[in-house]
């Protein structure tokens, strides 16, 4: 493995992050040079320097090997999270070393969990930076950086291996070169349209931009302590729901829909399952809320239930109600949403509908084979036969996911958390959702957790964002063939 090549490409990613820090400093400047201006400017300079330094020595390469690709992607996430702490640390306030690391990892992995007790106290520049980390993370630090840089040649394809799950890659029927432009175009368009819609619905420009960025990254970071509940507007909630839902649908399918191709949203089995699942769960929760006298009318219960279901399933974590107080059935269903999450090839985290669908079909086929031992039954998604290797990978992923959740729960409870907090925090971090239940409910945060648990949470977030194996495989990089 050529370490110099890995350093060069991580450096390029750092340059992009530095550009966003500079943009945040510009926001600070427009806001009358608020207290985040110098921290952001200095952080931008330090990050740019770190990123540019390798370019003085390492020359461009056309071919990147598998090992190098993995190291670049995983290294970029880690380094991005480290430099992301700079503005927080220099600014001070509630940001100790651990808190700054937590907030940075939470942003870049689009988890959206926070340790801040008073978000509105932050200057606008820092709030913008906080949302920027989520926006960069949403599209994948490496993927985003490499689209704009025109010098990669064949090396581009290798770098998508970790960023996009195997299933997502199968669904892309376009050339690698097109994939990057396609993703960025869709991501940017979605963000711009959401910004305009939110502005029209009554938000200020700053809130509209930050919430659009956060919605499209399915991160859930807000500029208000009360999150989206601050506005108490059905229009704003509706717009954010649409943005979140579109952001967790495979970007290739979105592109196909927009360009009038066959494999569009309406024909996709995965998208259909995803939408139907959300609708059914929202209705059940709404009924339980009305039955429990939580809301006076079904319409109001449905409004809050639908928003929370979409927010959790899309791994965003925005809040309009305190779900901690909801009936048990609602909590169980929302936890299930935190596990399944959105579609592959999107900004979503978690197990993903694609995998759950394949697993369900594998189980169904196994039962059929037991009834008809000589039958040849294939697992198909959208009419495409899923190979045995894919099925095996899906089952391995699901088992690994469950094991990690259990290990996470043990660690949380070991440090004094109750079972509900520990279990949901573990799921919430691995699936990059953000809020859980118990001490880390939709209206509270992770600030009360001890340092060890904050570190555990960030580790789980990183593992989840890199599709579990991305980070673990890096530990065995020397033994790769």
């Amino acid at each position, binding site marked *: 493995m050529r370490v*110099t090549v890995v350093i060069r490409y991580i450096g390029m990613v750092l340059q992009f992050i530095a550009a966003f820090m500079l943009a945040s400093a510009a926001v600070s400047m427009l806001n009358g040079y608020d207290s985040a201006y110098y921290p952001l400017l200095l952080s931008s300079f*330090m990050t740019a320097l770190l990123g540019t*330094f390798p370019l003085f*020595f390492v020359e461009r390469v056309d071919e990147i090997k598998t090992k190098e690709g993995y190291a670049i992607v995983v290294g970029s996430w880690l380094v991005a999270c480290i430099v992301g702490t700079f503005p927080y640390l*220099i600014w001070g306030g509630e940001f100790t070393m651990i808190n700054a690391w937590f907030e940075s990892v939470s942003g870049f992995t689009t988890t959206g969990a926070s340790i801040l007790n008073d978000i509105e106290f932050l200057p606008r520049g820092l709030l913008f930076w906080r949302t920027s980390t989520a926006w960069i993370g949403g599209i994948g630090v490496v993927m985003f950086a490499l689209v704009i840089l025109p010098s990669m040649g064949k090396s581009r394809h290798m770098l998508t291996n970790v960023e996009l799950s195997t299933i997502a890659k199968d669904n892309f029927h376009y050339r690698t070169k097109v994939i990057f432009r396609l993703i960025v175009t869709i991501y940017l368009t979605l963000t711009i349209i959401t910004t305009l819609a939110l502005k029209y619905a009554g938000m200020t420009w700053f809130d509209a931009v930050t919430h659009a960025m956060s919605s499209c990254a399915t991160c859930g970071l807000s500029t208000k302590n009360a999150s989206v509940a601050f506005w108490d507007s059905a229009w704003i909630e509706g717009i954010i729901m649409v943005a979140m839902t579109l952001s967790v649908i495979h970007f290739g399918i979105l592109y196909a829909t927009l360009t009038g191709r066959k494999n569009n949203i309406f024909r996709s089995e995965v998208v259909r399952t995803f939408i139907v699942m959300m609708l059914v769960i929202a209705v059940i929760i709404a009924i339980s809320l009305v039955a429990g006298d939580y809301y006076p009318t079904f319409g109001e219960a449905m409004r809050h239930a639908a928003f929370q279901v979409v927010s959790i399933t899309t791994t965003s974590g925005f809040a309009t109600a305190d779900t901690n107080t909801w009936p048990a059935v609602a909590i169980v269903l929302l936890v299930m949403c935190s596990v399944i999450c959105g579609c592959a090839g999107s900004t979503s985290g978690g197990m993903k509908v694609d995998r759950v669908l394949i697993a369900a079909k594998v189980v169904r086929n196994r039962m059929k084979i037991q009834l008809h031992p000589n039958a040849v039954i294939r697992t198909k998604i959208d009419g495409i036969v899923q190979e045995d290797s894919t099925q095996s990978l899906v089952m391995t992923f699901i088992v690994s996911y469950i094991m990690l959740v259990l290990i996470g729960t043990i660690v949380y409870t070991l440090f004094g958390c109750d079972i509900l907090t520990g279990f949901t925090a573990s799921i919430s971090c691995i699936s990059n959702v953000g809020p859980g239940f118990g001490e880390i409910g939709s209206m509270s945060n992770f600030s009360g957790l001890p340092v060890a648990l904050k570190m555990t949470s960030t580790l789980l977030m990183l593992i989840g964002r890199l599709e579990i194996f991305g980070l673990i495989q890096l530990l065995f990089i020397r033994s790769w063939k």
Partner: protein
Amino acid sequence: MFNWIRKIFKVNSIKRRIQLAFMSIILLLFFSGAMSLFELERVSHDTEEILLASKENIDLASEMISALNEQNDAMISMAVIGGTLRDIAPHFEDCEESMERLRLATEEAQMRMSTTDNAATTDSLVMFTKRINEMVVSYINGDVHRALSKDTITNPTTHLWYIESYKPEYVKVSGQITKYMTGSENTLGPDVNRLSHTARRAVTPVFLSLVVMIVVVLMFYFFVNHYLIKPILRINEGVGDYLRYRIPFDSNLYCRDELVSLRDRIVALIQKLR
């Protein structure tokens, strides 16, 4: 449009690479230094403000205590020790002067503390001061004027007045001054917090710059070793092997700078010698 950026990053000369590396380190030092100086300047300014505010508070309290003591001395002389009008005349003036000083000092304190948590204490202080001053004025207007006809102003009634009326008020005012002194120092708390925040902001950039600097220096060492020292050693080894054992000179380099040109020239020279 971006040709000049490309030119910066397309460095094919050893000298330029080293220059750029050192320039980066110098720039980092300069910026972190400038940032720290800026923040230290703020720390210094905040410290000065806090010290000044503290000094002014102490001065005011000292002025109040001094005026109150002077008034007390004068009252002891007039009401307890007593004497003829000629004896008490200087105390009479002292008393008026101390009343004025006490009034001015308490009003100044009230103005300074009007927007702080200590405002209630200064309001009480002003009220008690007004009360004790009024008491003294009434004493002077009453007893002293009565004494003018008798040529002496002290009697058992004035003793009693001092002990039962004046002394308790004196204790109240002096207690309130003590309260003001401690309270005014407590009001500097937010300023001290701000100072601590600014001090942290002055230290953090330096700490982060040091970390970044260490990373840059390590990278610099790694790259110099990888792109300069190792190739030179390899060329040297290749030439040595050729001269000693006639092993064909072949040095595979992974850079595009003067070292490649050196290798090519060595190859040309060997071919020419053949």
